[in-house]
């Protein structure tokens, strides 16, 4: 296990039009600016310091995309239970909110075990923890959550300034 902890903060905007139609824009502001746009099987990551945008085809990592779609916002309890064995982990306060912790054990080989904290009021995740077999993990915490605000297409559009280069790391 690598003992190399880091924290980044930013804002997320997310839109789910169907089971498989998800648009996400994450604008990380600290410690380094980075914008991540995600739609369908394609992700774009913009690094302002490097004036570079990377395009990534997620089609080759469908299991991760599916996990994000299945366990993210707008997931029904029925969907969750059809993909994971769910164990209740108790009540906790996350970012000042009362939440219920769920321990998810995947029913399919390609999914990862994870922990999910659901807000008592609202029924959406306030925290997600993906633990890798090595013990390393990703912990996402959501604060000041607004559900169903009016968002136009521009909320999900990555604005790339002129002069940025485009890279395709998979090619």
């Amino acid at each position, binding site marked *: 296990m690598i003992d190399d902890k880091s924290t980044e903060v930013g804002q997320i905007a997310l839109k789910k039009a169907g089971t498989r139609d998800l648009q996400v824009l994450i604008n990380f502001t600290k410690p380094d600016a980075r914008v991540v746009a995600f739609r369908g099987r394609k992700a774009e990551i913009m690094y302002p310091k490097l004036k570079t945008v990377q395009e990534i085809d997620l089609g080759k990592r469908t299991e991760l995309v599916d996990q994000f779609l299945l366990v993210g916002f707008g997931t029904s309890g*029925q969907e969750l239970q059809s993909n994971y064995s*769910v164990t209740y982990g108790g009540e906790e306060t996350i970012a000042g909110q009362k939440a219920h912790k769920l321990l998810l054990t995947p029913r399919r080989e390609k999914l990862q075990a994870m922990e999910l904290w659901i807000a008592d009021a609202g029924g959406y995740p306030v925290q997600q923890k993906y633990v890798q077999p090595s013990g390393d993990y990703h912990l996402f915490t959501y*604060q000041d959550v607004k559900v169903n605000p009016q968002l136009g297409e521009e909320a999900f559009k990555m604005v790339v300034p002129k002069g940025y280069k485009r890279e395709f790391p998979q090619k």
Partner: protein
Amino acid sequence: MRLLQIASFIALSTASFGATTEAVMANLDQSSGKFQTLTANLTHLT
């Protein structure tokens, strides 16, 4: 007697946790149908 008390406590706790899980699942079922968009401040710890 003490063993019986412990067994009862475990049974009650398990039943309570099971009921809570079902309540959380029901909450997710209800909110997922209405869900369209979301904004939030995000912290990512690795």
